[in-house]
């Protein structure tokens, strides 16, 4: 069984997993994605939940229906998925991170500077 977050519908979490896979290259453009039955059985979730996630991804132009053989990652999906995720980062994740930075009193500039050398920021004094 899979652990799902309890604050977001599962079909949206499934959609997010597919998007993450497309962005990381785990699912290449043109690759067939697992069938609805496979995903439902593997995660023990309702097939309708899986088909809802796939439908959404298809509406967003990230998946193509292959006649008679399921669905595949659409051409150009990776660039489009990145664009969607950038939007989501800025509107959903970043405000949350910013709130956390403020509540912990972290030096935001020092934090940003670590992005260039890839290390961890020093403790603020």
């Amino acid at each position: 069984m899979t652990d799902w977050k309890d604050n977001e519908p599962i079909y949206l979490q499934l959609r997010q997993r597919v998007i993450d896979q497309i962005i990381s290259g785990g699912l290449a453009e043109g690759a067939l994605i697992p069938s609805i039955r496979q995903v439902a059985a593997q995660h023990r979730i309702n097939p309708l939940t899986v088909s809802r996630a796939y439908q959404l991804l298809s509406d967003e132009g990230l998946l193509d229906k292959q006649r008679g053989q399921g669905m595949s990652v659409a051409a150009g999906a990776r660039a489009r998925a990145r664009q969607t995720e950038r939007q989501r980062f800025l509107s959903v994740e970043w405000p949350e991170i910013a709130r956390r930075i403020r509540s912990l009193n972290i030096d935001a500039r020092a934090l940003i500077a670590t992005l260039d050398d890839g290390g961890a920021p020093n403790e603020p004094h």
Partner: protein
Amino acid sequence: MSLIDARGLRKHYRGMRAGDVCALDGFDLTLEPGRILGLIGPNGSGKTTALKAFLGLTHLDGGDMRVLGLDPRRQRKALMTRTGYIADVGTLPRWMRVHQLLDYVAGVHPGFRRERAQAALSHTDVRPDSRIQGLSRGMTVQLHLALVLAVQADLLVLDEPTLGLDILYRQQFYDRLLSEFDGERQGILITTHEVREIEHLLTDVVFIHHGRAVLQAPMDDLAARFLRLGVGPGEAAAARALGPISERHSLNGIEMVFDGRARSELEPLGPVATPTLPELFVALLGENR
């Protein structure tokens, strides 16, 4: 047409000492094709009596019921050709060998597709010449499932199907069940105490308590209707003013479940989530058990 349409079912058992026991007290349930319905309730709530009634295995004292459009008591034979049933007490003839059992079922059941059962068993450790009494509990359940799923059934009734199975067999059970499920035509009615194990599988849920359906709803409706809010001591009074149906104190602070409040009303007070089915059951029925 609904697969199951039951209205106002009543059933009394004559009690030994405490007088009559009301197992079903005006129980309603509807199951449509393509749906997977979980019947959830504590021991003695009437679950098993309800399942028996749907299968024509028990006499009722009242109510109206159609299963696959049939009267389960009078048309039981016709009903059984299109119904699959797995019970925790399900037994198979222990003295038979597996291939003999397949011969037997093929002989008595017109809808049985032997090659499907054999294909299913080929993925297991159950061999055609195994004697049934020599099979482990898990293997027996696999054999049972292979037989039941090889029947072209419109209705599957599963009563505690994974009781006593280890984690591996459980996964295999649900794997098989879901990969064979026909979402156009079939419906599944399932009861289990391992509610967390099936809650994402369900499209619908019925809570049964003292022989009544206290809640029947699609899972999507539950998610829209019920929300769990975690609050700190500072927000507790404001949250209570919104009328939670339950409140409990936990490591996460105070958790309240609300019925019919908008997410936007609760979010300013703390993190909002969808309650699990066990949480919801306790929230709705915890106090009047």
